[in-house]
């Protein structure tokens, strides 16, 4: 029963990590930018929710209507101002720039909010539903549900709109996309906006499920990167599957052994998978031109 409960918890929490990780992998797929700032962006989203819900008294869910546009603008602006000018060594230069952006945001958050751990509270934070002897926390159900909705919206954007087609074309071959008249820079900026917006939405849920401060971003980014590697870089579906596998492994290990070892065991799983599939579960191998 404990194991079953662990699996249920893992799947529910995995949905949330899938939401945060999908932004990272989507951005990478389109423009080969490793967004190291995704961790701190989740925390920034959580802080924005915290400010709006505790100081203005809006329900955390409603704050999404404010935070997602703000964060979208942030992502769009970062691409237009900082990433677009990079011409050489894009992969590593953009990583270093995003690293620096993360450091700046972390510094700002730390100065404004200090190191105290905070948490976003709502009426449904502590209640839960019991079905067949299993406990379903309302909060995690909400997180899973909202993640599913947002990921469904992402699916519609990717596969049912003109922008989505431009985005997928850019992912497959940026040069060819440019040749058929796609404004690759605009698509990239919008994608970074979407990625950052997804991170912020994940941040609102993260802020409700766990207490956080600015340095929580390191734990987050390490988990998100691991999820994205396991899923295969650039594969949104891979990230979702990997997120759920990771959290299930972690929660099951936590209940049958010890919470301390949950994450470690997952890392061992990652190492084992990479031995046989270096490109991750759903990734493509980078061939030629190292």
């Amino acid at each position, binding site marked *: 029963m404990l194991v079953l409960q662990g699996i249920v918890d893992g799947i529910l929490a995995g949905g949330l990590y899938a939401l945060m990780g999908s932004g990272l992998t989507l951005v990478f797929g389109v423009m080969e930018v490793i967004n190291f700032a995704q961790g701190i962006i989740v925390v920034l989203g959580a802080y924005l929710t915290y400010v709006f819900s505790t100081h203005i008294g809006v329900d955390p869910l409603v704050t999404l209507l404010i935070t997602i546009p703000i964060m979208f603008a942030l992502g769009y602006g970062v691409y237009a101002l*900082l990433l677009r000018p990079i011409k050489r060594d894009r992969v590593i230069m953009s990583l270093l720039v995003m690293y620096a952006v993360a450091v700046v945001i972390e510094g700002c958050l730390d100065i404004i909010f200090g190191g105290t751990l905070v948490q976003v509270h709502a009426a449904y934070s502590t209640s839960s539903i019991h079905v067949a002897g299993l406990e379903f926390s309302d909060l995690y159900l909400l997180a899973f549900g909202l993640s599913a909705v947002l990921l469904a919206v992402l699916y519609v954007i990717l596969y049912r709109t003109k922008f989505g087609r431009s985005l997928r074309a850019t992912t497959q071959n940026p040069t060819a996309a440019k040749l058929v008249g796609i404004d690759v820079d605009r698509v990239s900026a919008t994608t970074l906006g979407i990625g950052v917006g997804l991170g912020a939405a994940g941040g609102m849920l993260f802020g409700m499920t766990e207490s956080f401060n600015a340095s929580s971003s390191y734990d987050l980014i390490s988990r998100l990167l691991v999820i994205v590697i396991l899923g295969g870089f650039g594969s949104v579906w891979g990230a979702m599957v990997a997120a759920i596998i990771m959290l299930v492994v972690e929660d099951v290990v936590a209940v049958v052994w010890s919470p301390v070892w949950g994450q470690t065991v997952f890392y061992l799983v990652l190492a084992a998978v*990479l031995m046989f599939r270096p490109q991750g579960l759903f990734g493509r191998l980078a061939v030629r031109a190292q």
Partner: protein
Amino acid sequence: MAVIQATPELLSPTEIDRAFRDPYALSARTRGISWTVLLAVLVMFPLVFTNPAVTSVAVFTMFFLLATVAWNMFSGYSGYISIGHAVYYGFGQYAVALLILHLSITSGVSELALLPIAGVVAAAVAVPVGLLVLRVRRHTFIVLTIAVMFIFQLLAFNFPSITGGSAGMNVAPPTWSGNDFNLPFYYIALGTAIIALALSWGIRRSKFGLGLLAIRDDEDRAKGLGIRVTRTKLIALVISAFFVGIAGGLYAIFVGQVFPQFAFTPFYDLYLAVFSFVGGLGTLSGPVLGALVLGPLQQYFELQFGATTLYLIIYGVLFIVILLLLPRGVVPSIADRYHSLLAAHWRRAEERRSRSGPATPSAVTTGEARTESVPAVPTVREGA
């Protein structure tokens, strides 16, 4: 990575040779003098500036210098950008801390004798880590190195019986103290950095180094040409890890404390990578310049604003500005500027020579000179 301008004329062998030579290379004499002057300045520095606050900044700068040169030996030459060298840094720190604790070493000199062991431990760790991460390329490699670094940080937290967990470990201080406390650290780090630099120079000129550069340019083709790519990359990583491990060991003894989050820190590689990039990735002098210019700046900000995280903001903004303004690194950018000035100088010399040619009638010469003076104006404006 010589850039050859496409020219319609056939090049003479000397010209081809010149084109293929490193375009950034100064003459052997200029280089020799610069390195000697730099070495003399670095050797004399702590003897001239004896203020402990200054020398401790200098010590940290030397640690960075050592590690940046080592980092560049692998990442700069092979093109495999590692953001996980903190793994070897952390292992160097913990190796020294654990050895001092369990061997109950008290004398300062024998503490320093542990440094090669720290290097060997780090190099030994680099073998399995390298075998795992070197299976992938480009982005996946970069991200995997970060992930491995976080894994070891987590392990350091999770084995409190060995590492002391989040409480960290204390390292017994060396026996010497007082105003000259910093000097041994400074000179050991400088000496090791010089060894690393000499090795880096040797690698750059060796067949092994050519293999690394070939891997950077096109790994599949390098493989096709018979280079044992995995072995070449792994050896470079192990050498690099050895020196970074020594830097970690030095740091542990100097600071006297080891914590998981500072031993396996994501910041460390940000510094190493940015220092190398700013100086010029894959060059010999680039990492040296980057570490010597930005290292003290980093220390200064940390000392000045370290109480709050303001220094993070300043440093982050500084990095962004540098990366966007000098995307090619300082050394290549300056070299480019120098070469375009040199080219302009040659062009002017050529023009003068053709103008004062003996066969040209004087009337035509003045006419030519007049027309030529017109396009010369924008050149002057560019210079100003």
